[in-house]
């Protein structure tokens, strides 16, 4: 069952003669539990796609179904709620809240939750658990600037899955890290994938793409092709290439 589906998604910046089409008729779908990478040269529409899939921006045309709910025309407050509950972000530059302890960073999405079922102590317990599962149970009270890049990215990953989102959206998660630390982060993401989480990673690196089940290649705002990385998806059903460049 697809957790995420786009139908004819387009994004145009500006109007009239100066308008730029950043995305054109992108249709794709991602299944629950899939580990998918998005690749493409700069200007290919990667960032635009990331922003729309992350509910940070709205498409100019087309539909975006998240868990069968059309989120493409929601207002800012509704999108904030979707981001809060359904999407976990991992950024290249970690993007932790400054001067805020690691634990408080991880608990932040839970505090912004509009779902008032849990007490604050319960939320903190969940956040602590998430910190432990990324191997930072002993760094709860550390501030971001007291942590190494790899540790900061682990905190960010803990923050991304603490709300049990529909999918995790990782934008160049190893871009700021040395190769060894990058490997650690990737195996952490792979581990989350093995636990059944849906992960969408945007990357320049063929190595990372090779680790994922499928790679969506973008060019000039269109899906160029979708490649199944057979070695990684022996359990998955054969997936046909959808909507390649026409």
């Amino acid at each position, binding site marked *: 069952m697809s957790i995420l589906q786009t139908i004819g998604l387009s994004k145009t910046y500006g109007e009239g003669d100066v308008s730029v089409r950043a995305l054109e008729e992108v249709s794709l779908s991602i299944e629950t539990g899939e580990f998918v990478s998005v690749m493409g040269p700069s200007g290919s529409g990667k960032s635009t796609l990331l922003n729309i899939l992350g509910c*940070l921006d709205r498409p100019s045309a087309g539909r975006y179904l998240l868990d069968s709910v059309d989120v493409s025309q929601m207002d800012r*407050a509704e999108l*904030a709620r979707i*981001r809060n*509950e359904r999407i976990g972000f991992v950024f290249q530059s970690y993007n932790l*809240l400054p001067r805020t302890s690691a634990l408080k960073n991880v608990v932040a*999405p839970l505090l*912004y*939750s509009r779902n008032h079922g849990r007490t604050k102590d319960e939320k903190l317990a969940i956040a602590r658990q998430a910190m432990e599962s990324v191997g930072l149970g002993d760094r709860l009270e550390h501030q971001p600037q007291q942590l190494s890049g790899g540790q900061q990215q682990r905190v960010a990953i803990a*923050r991304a899955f603490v709300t049990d989102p529909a999918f995790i959206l990782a934008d160049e998660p190893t871009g700021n890290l040395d190769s060894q630390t990058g490997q650690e982060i990737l195996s952490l993401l792979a581990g989350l994938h093995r636990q059944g989480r849906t992960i969408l990673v945007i990357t320049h690196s063929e190595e990372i793409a090779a680790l994922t089940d499928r790679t969506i290649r973008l060019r000039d705002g269109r899906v160029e092709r979708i490649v199944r990385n057979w070695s990684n998806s022996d359990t998955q059903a054969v997936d046909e290439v959808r909507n390649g460049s026409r």
Partner: protein
Amino acid sequence: MDLAEFLRTAWESIVNNKLRSLLTMLGIIIGVASVIVMIGVSAGTEAAIEERITGLGSNLLFVQSGFVRFGPGERSVDFTAAVGQAGGGLVYDDAFAIAERVEGVVAVAVEQSSVQTVEVGSVSLDSIAIVGSTADYPSVRDMTIEFGRYFTQQEVDRKQKVAVLGQSLAEELFGATDPIGQTVNVGGTKLRVIGVFEQRGLVSGVDFDSQLYTPISVVFQKFTPSRFARIIGDRVRMIYVEVESPENVESAIQQIGLLLAKRHEVSLEEADFTITTQQDIIQTQEATTSAFRNLLAWVAGVSLIVGGIGIMNIMLVSVTERTREIGIRQAVGAAPTDIRWQFLTEAVVLSLAGGAIGVLAGVAGTWLFGAVSNLRTVILGSSVLLAFGSAAAVGIFFGFYPANRAAQLDPIQALRHE
């Protein structure tokens, strides 16, 4: 996020930027403190003035020569000269007429004064106010004799050369020696001291303690002789009329007005005298002090607004500085309302903290002001509430715009902000 969480976030942000927070609050602190001090000083002054004026004696009417208006600092203007020696003004006999003919009058005292040099032995004092009066004077003016006695109406009628001294005058002239029975030389006339008043202090600009009191007949004869006295009577500056109760005041004013107009052969419109009441004086004073207080309140209010603009300024800087933080919060699910509340709470917490410090500073300042100056100060609970309330209002008002700006930020651009 609930309010407690917003407050915690706001508090952390304030503590994380201590110096900036303090500088931001400074405007509010100064504004609130100045509101409290200014209101404290003017309310204290007002209370002191009212107390002193009430101390002049209750149910008292002042009948003055000429068209003198009562007002602070201009009470001893003598219009007699302007009106002309021959025509107009109060005369001594008017007082007796009032005492006899007006209903509800308890006591009448007359005053005519002169300024003379007073000598005792080698001590010589220039420009001493010589107050000529009648026997009822201490009672209508609420003054008490400390040593000796005041003169009687008989002594007034017989032009006895006696004197009663104000306290500080007695001290200057006689020092430690008992003045009773001694002789003072007033402008060449020898007067025997028969009493000393209790200390009275400064009332409406008149120092009662530095004056010399003597029978009015002596003043007429020795200090303000008039060629017309035989024809129209001895001119007096002021007649004090004490009435039975406040209810009698209005009718007494009317009766005195009619009586004097008839005696002076003028109409009420062109009366050569003025009747004022205690209440008039208090009202004049109050009008002046409340105008003063309003002015101070405006000045303080302006400083609060300046403080508010300071808060807005710093909050705008803070929003710009923390654009990325706002972006991160938006990414993890903060709605525009959450962001707005966060910054609004921060502005209000800053204002309230500034307001609280300002209240402490204001109360301390008012107390200190009262201690080092001789002005009386009162700390009004209402002024504390007013100042604190305005600080909160200023925080909300000036915090709203920056908070709204923060809430309107585009998450993509905010996240990209360096």
